[in-house]
Structure formats: C-alpha cells, structure tokens
C-alpha cells in the first residue's frame, strides 16, 4: 500500500468544479497552504469550502476566494487582520456564507466522519443561528438539532506521514485536520516529512491511514501567518 503522491499538483488534480472541500487549519496554524495554492492553479470553480475562517491577506484560502473559485463558505469566524478577499465578495453578494458556531462546526464534521447523521447540542439555543433548526428537550433542558457535515475532499496538513496514510501533527496545527480527514470521501494530506511504514509508533498515530487517500511531502511548508506579514500575494 502506497498512498504517496509525487506533487501537490498531482494530489489535487481531480478535484472537480462544484466540489465540497474541507480545508484544515485554524487561521494559519495547520493550514495546508501548498495544497490550497495547487488547487488555485488547478482552477476548479463553484467550490463549497469548509474552514474555521475565511482567509487572511492574499494567500491560501483568501487567494482561493479572490480567484472566484468559492461559491459558498461554511465557517465560524470570517474575520481576520485582513479579510478583504472574503468581505468584498460577501458584501457584493458574490459568495454565500453559512455561519456555524465553532464547536458545532467541529462536531458536525466529526459526526460526518463517524456516521452520525444528526445530534443535539446546547450551543446556539435561543439565538439567531438556531433559527429554523429542530429543538428537543432532554432532562428539562432544550437543545438544538444539528446535522452532520461531509465533504468530497479534505485538504489537510500533517507533520509526519507514512505510505499507509498514518499521520501526526505539529503542536496546535492539529486543530480541525483530524476530524476533516474523517469526514471527506477523499482526504489529501500534505506532510512535512515522509517516513517509512512503521516510522510512526502505533500509539503516536493521530490520524490512522484509513481516513487518508493521498499523502504528499512538502518539506519546510510555508506558514500563512508569515506569508501575510510579508504581504505575499498568490498566485
């Protein structure tokens, strides 16, 4: 079994127009910049993107939005130091936004990966974000019903990856990456270093290979936060 791909371009080549794509990361931490940039170069349009944020500056997700490739964004916090790409398009009515509380977003994605079509949460009860959603009472308290969230593709960033797709993550760059890996039909992981099968101790694997379709090595990956401070623009 060898899930390794030779390049980020190859790894994202078959993502079609209209696909739903989960993109890992929380701000720049854990954002798979090289995979996102490969997706920009590949050029599919009409994407629905799931990410905690809406991008920052003119790289990564912000650049993908700036290129007009995203029709809909599902996120919790479309604010950043420089969210111009998203904000301009949103205010011009050029992109749809589904705003989801952060914990509900994480749980909906995990539910998608775990085969749980719906669940109840106290989060958002009584607020505008619960409007139109079913509610139910359990043990005297009212909860909101939320649906699973799945995707056609997930683009994620790991630290180590082996040919079977087993992954580790670096510090807080873990964030949404492992749950998105579970919830997509095809999960494409960039990793900072390939190791041979067996190169990750079984107890230390965070994402088992069953959740991963493709692994591509990107040594010394770019950090979105650093790019933004450098005022980088892609492409």
């Amino acid at each position, binding site marked *: *079994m060898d899930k390794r791909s030779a390049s980020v371009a190859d790894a994202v080549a078959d993502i079609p127009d209209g696909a739903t794509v989960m993109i890992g990361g929380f701000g720049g931490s854990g954002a798979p910049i090289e995979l996102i940039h490969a997706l920009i170069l590949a050029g599919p349009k009409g994407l629905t993107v799931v990410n905690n944020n809406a991008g920052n500056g003119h790289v990564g997700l912000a650049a993908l939005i700036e290129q007009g490739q995203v029709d809909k964004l599902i996120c919790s916090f479309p604010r950043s130091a420089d969210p111009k790409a998203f904000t301009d398009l949103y205010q011009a009515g050029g992109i749809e936004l589904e705003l989801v509380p952060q914990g509900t977003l994480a749980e909906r994605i*995990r539910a*998608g*990966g*775990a*085969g*749980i079509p719906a669940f109840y949460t106290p989060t958002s009860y009584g607020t505008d974000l619960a409007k139109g959603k079913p509610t139910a009472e359990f043990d005297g308290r009212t909860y909101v019903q939320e649906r699973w969230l799945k995707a056609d593709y997930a683009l994620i960033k790991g630290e180590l990856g*082996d*040919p*079977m797709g*087993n992954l580790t993550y670096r510090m807080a760059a873990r964030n949404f990456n492992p749950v998105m890996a*579970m919830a997509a039909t095809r999960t494409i992981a960039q990793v900072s270093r390939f190791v*041979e*099968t*067996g190169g990750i101790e*079984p*107890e230390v*694997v965070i994402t*088992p*290979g*069953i*959740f991963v379709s493709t692994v591509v090595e990107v040594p010394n990956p770019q950090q979105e936060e650093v790019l933004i401070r450098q005022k980088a623009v892609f492409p």
Partner: protein
Amino acid sequence: MSINLENIQLNNAQIAWRAAQDIEDGAYVNLGIGFPEMVAQFQPEGREAIFHTENGVLGFGKAAEAGEEDWDLINAGKKAVTIKPGTAFFHHADSFAMVRGGHLDVAILGAFQVAQNGDLANWSTGRGGVPAVGGAMDLVHGARRVAVITDHVTKKGAPKLVDACTMPLTGVGCVTRVYTSLCVVDVVEGRFVLREKLAAISMDDLQSVTGAVLHVGDTVKDLTTPSL
C-alpha cells in the same frame, strides 16, 4: 431433502478461502469473531488487506504464537494478535467512527439467517439465555460491502437463506453478498441472485435447500476452491 450435502459441500476453510478472493488489494476489512476470522489466512498473494478490529487496532498482524501472547494486544474475539509496521491504535469511539462512518471496505460476518432483502440475523437465537450483541449491529451498517460466510443449511438441515428472517434481526437490508458451503449469492434489489454454485449440485437441488427463490444472474459460474 433428497440430496446428501455432506459429500459435496465446502468446509469452513474453503468458504473462508472463497470470501478472501474477493478482498481487493488495499481493502480495509473487519472480520467478525469466530469463523470469519479464518478469512485472514487465505489472503491472496500480492494483495494487502488492512484488518480492523473493534477494540481499536488497525493493520494488525498474525495471531500471536502460543506463549508469546501480550494480552493488551488482542482482537475483538479476545485472541492475542501482533502488530506490524503501520499498525495504529485508537479508542473505542474512534474505532466505531471508522465502522459507522463507512470507512471499511468489507465486513465479513457469520449468520443464523439471511433474508432475500438483505436482512441479517446473527446475534440471538431468540431462545432465552444471556443475550450478547457486541459490535455486530454496528458492523452491518458500517462497511461498503457486508458479506456473510455460512453453511448453506443449519446442522438440522434448515435453510439459512430465507424469504424473511424468523430470528431476531441484527440489521435491516444490510447484507450485500453471501458465501455459503454451496454457492455465492448477491442480494440485489430484494432478491437473491446466484453468482456461483458448486458443479456437483444441480440448480433444482440447490433451490430445494434454499428458503427463498434463487434468481439466476447473467451467468452462474462454477464455485471452485482448493482442497483445504
């Protein structure tokens, strides 16, 4: 029953061997406890299957040698197994996320009865005693293909492929293929479709030991296995 199945039917090893031939290279597979565990022995050369066990191991290796067991490293049947390069450990909720989330390619289970609509009964005889279900009800909704391996009839000669299950169900409409001691049958739109049968049994005799109509597909191949 006019025919003596004893002389012609496949033994358990041969049924397991036949099921193993359909496991594609790179497949993620869960084998139910007991008889289905035997399938792992017959993995075709040159194909790699990754085995999952409910208690939180993916990609485990062979059974542990007697005297070499580490009882912290067992499978769902509580037998000691081994790790190999690429093994991963995870907790029970993550393990069943793999199952319920549809991440397995194949689950292979035993059966008391399989109905033509794919209903499976394999967890309770309904006769009292202490009920125990384990992971069977999860597995039948987890894998893309849910296969059953079983003798074609019970020890008393009653058909195990039936119109409708009379025993307590494990899952509704979940089975996709059945490997029996006499034939290979797919469940297609509420009907049993015969894909392979032993050359030694006639269609009429096969139908006579089957509790539901066996529809004949485009072709019915001979079911052949090595001596095992």
